[in-house]
């Protein structure tokens, strides 16, 4: 167990170093330079550009830039090129905005996908199963922005509530109930949209896991003993079918920082995805690289946690 942990930590660190190198190379070898973003701006005199390049070490060779950048990142001194603000502080602020979306989306995903998946596995081949299957393919296939517009039109036309942004402007001093309702409406649509794909995929996965377990011999034995159907399904089958999903707690970790670029820009939600998108537009390399680095760390940490959880819950693969 300990040797497994040690080995995989070393492996993950090596992977992380390569990710750092590759993402740095991708950004810096692409044609164009950040100093050329706005060539027509009269304030950008050649001397200005030269000073800018000097201040951010852009005149150094690549490997020295690499060392400078990651030294600054690990000491927390990296600043955005656009407004000279510390990157980590900026990311933290946006992260707090994205967090409610992530939490509500995850709760929606897990509470909707499991009942649907289990139900369609129990009544497989029936009308419910077939319509759930079709619906989940429908949800996987629909372009997110198109679905977002349909939902916005629907909600705005039927309930007459504003949904764009994090809260309604100019609400002022009203009762706390109204403020809470306002926040809820603004939160609900984007988090639902962020979760649609997840709901569809997860419910299919739950269904196939459940089918797998239901065809096992011990389930047949339980049936043959004359146990009531509920007990067979929920006590014998479901418990074992849930096993792989424990590990998914680790795998949802990267979604923390992902944040959907498209959904956040439709809803004008000032979250992580929007910030990353704006950074790409402005060629703000420190922010792009930092977001990339943090998300790589989260992916690696997520797989590590899920491996560990799997070893804890499944005695068969304990090393």
């Amino acid at each position, binding site marked *: 167990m300990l040797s497994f942990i040690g080995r995989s930590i070393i492996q993950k660190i090596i992977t992380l170093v390569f990710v750092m190198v590759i993402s740095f190379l991708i950004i810096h070898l692409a044609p164009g330079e950040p100093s050329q973003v706005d060539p027509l701006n009269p304030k950008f005199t050649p001397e200005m550009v030269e000073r800018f390049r000097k201040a951010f070490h852009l005149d150094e060779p690549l490997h020295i830039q690499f060392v400078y950048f990651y030294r600054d990142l690990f000491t927390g001194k990296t600043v955005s090129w656009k407004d000279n603000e510390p990157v980590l502080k900026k990311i933290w602020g946006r992260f707090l905005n994205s967090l409610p979306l992530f939490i509500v989306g995850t709760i929606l995903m897990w509470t909707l996908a499991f009942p649907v998946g289990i139900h369609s596995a129990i009544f497989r081949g029936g009308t419910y199963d077939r319509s759930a299957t079709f619906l989940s393919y429908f949800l996987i296939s629909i372009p*997110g922005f198109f679905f977002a517009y349909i939902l916005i039109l629907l909600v705005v036309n039927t309930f007459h509530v504003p949904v764009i942004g994090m809260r309604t402007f100019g609400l002022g001093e009203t009762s706390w109930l109204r403020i809470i309702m306002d926040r809820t409406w603004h939160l609900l649509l984007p988090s639902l949209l962020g979760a649609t794909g997840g709901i569809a995929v997860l419910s299919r996965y739950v269904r196939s896991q459940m089918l797998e377990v239901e065809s096992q011999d011990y389930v047949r034995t339980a049936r043959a003993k004359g146990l009531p159907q509920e007990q067979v399904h929920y006590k014998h089958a479901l418990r074992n079918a849930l096993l792989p999903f424990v590990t998914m707690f680790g795998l949802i970790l990267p979604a923390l920082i992902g944040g959907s670029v498209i959904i956040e820009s439709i809803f004008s939600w000032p979250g992580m995805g929007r910030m990353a998108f704006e950074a790409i537009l402005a060629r703000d390399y420190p922010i792009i690289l930092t977001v990339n680095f943090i998300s790589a760390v989260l992916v690696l940490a997520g797989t590590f946690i899920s491996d560990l959880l799997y070893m804890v819950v499944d005695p068969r693969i304990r090393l």
Partner: protein
Amino acid sequence: MKKENKHIVSTPGMQEAPLVPRESRWQEFWRLLRKNRLALAGLIIFVCFFLIAVGGLVLTSGTKPVFDPAMVRLQEKLRPPFSEPRLEDLSPEEIPTLGIYLLGTDDLGRDVFSRMLQGAWVAVTIGFVAVGIAVLIGICMGGIAGYFGRNPVRVDHILFAVVVSVGAGLLLSGVFWAGGVLLATGCASVLVQRWWKKTRGTQSVPPLIRLLSQETFSIDTLIMRLVDIMLCFPVFFLILTVVALLPASMYNIMIIIGLTSWMGTTRFVRAELLSLREQDFVTAAKALGVKDWRIIFRHMVPNAMAPVLVSATIGIANAILIEAGLSFLGFGVPPPHATWGNIISAGKEFIFDAPWLTFIPGCAILIVVLAFNLFGEGLRDILNPKLRERY
């Protein structure tokens, strides 16, 4: 299924005579496909879509196309679907080919029907080329990892790779002299090694050279760690970054989507090849002296194609969705060329006045992607006998 098996077994004379299966692989495939309604519908839509796209390419390209997707009629903007053109305002060449605006016009008075036709071909090419690149890389990487996986990488291999890649990098960044020297050293070292092997054979070698042939890790580890590294990048964000930094063009988008989505195929092919490698027909082929590459691509890969086909079909659906998303954000195929994502992204400002600009391309994307997904899932059930019994 079970009934038919019984039927075949109970046929008299079954044990002696017919060794040839009753139905060919295609017949069986077709029989199973017809049973799976959703997959069949997916296939039909897919074929129709492909024909429409080819027709669209023919009808909308050239100097004088039948349907001109770029014809601007400012006096006819935002007309709803099925509306008649106001003939008195239009010069003869501006009149739409069909006599009416079948799917309406956009904010510049361009015929949405022609633009949809043009966009259909873009969707097809992006889907197929991107997935083609991904599958090609995936099969090669997976094939090498699965077949040669146990072979170790030696220190001199690593040195060679480092020297050549640094040399190429220097050449590309403009340091011709040092880069050229490094590249030449790399190539020369291969020749020296050949010569060494030929002349010396297996004589004792000095310790320094022995250090060079020290074994480090296996090829399998190398390729699978590469897959792990690629999986660390948030895909849509990575594509967006690269597309935003590179000059906008359709080919860049295809290549980038392809280069960022080969990891799944690699894993599938590797897993299949690992189990196929132990089978008798591979041993037989090796005993016959068949070359390694021929064994991989002629004997093993065809047997590992089932999961690859499935993931490729679903991959096409994903590629179309990614392109639409990029176009929506303004990083898709550059403007005069119409794609379905472009039409939506231009029409989103008129969503209340001209909802057809959002709904027609949106529904088109939805239907095509749904068809690919349904067909892919059906294919999974058909090609994998283990899944068939489930229903």
